[in-house]
């Protein structure tokens, strides 16, 4: 029981460390997609 709780704690610690990375990478991808889209739009693409 205690071991199980500890494993959940470590999972939470790992998640907490990875969340900012995941969020940052997701936003970076989103921004890049928008930049590509807007450049294509500027060139007259539909």
């Amino acid at each position: 029981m205690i071991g199980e709780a500890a494993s959940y704690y470590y999972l939470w610690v790992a998640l907490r460390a990875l969340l900012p990375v995941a969020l940052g990478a997701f936003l970076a991808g989103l921004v890049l997609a928008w930049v590509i889209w807007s450049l294509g739009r500027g060139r007259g693409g539909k």
Partner: protein
Amino acid sequence: MIQSFVAAGLSPEVIFLLDGIDWLKYLVALFFFFLGLFAGWWQWHYQPLLAQLQEVPEPVARGHSEKPDSEGGGPPAVGDSGASLPAVRSDAEAAVEDPLAEALADSSTPEESDDLRLIRGIGAALEVRLNQQGVYRFSQIANWDPAEIANMSEKLHLGQQIERFSWVEQAKSLQNSD
């Protein structure tokens, strides 16, 4: 991990660099980066395209679509033996019900017309529907005021597409380039 790098015959400098990378974070970041890229593509490229492709003219409401039931339980007409016969429709009625026939009938191109598909956000289907509304020229779109834009958006179920793609500005520049 380091043992596998050594076994792979990598130089100590490269091993030092590789060992410094937090691989889990790197892989998570890579995954979410591509997820973000995909989400952006979906949001800005694919979904508007899909929305444009799925735009279909709504069926024209028929004035007398419902067949009147036997009124007052009167005597059945001659030949009405109770069997459900297919309803016979006049050609005019059939034409009104068929969106394609209606589009072909209404979108007869006048002598002077522009290729409205040059405007970003207008595809083949939308061009036909604009023609149905009597819009054939860039000059017509270029002269739209906000009220007319709202009217067209409502008629063609376009939402904010006209403003989002700046149809009026595009039409003005296309009109001037002619």
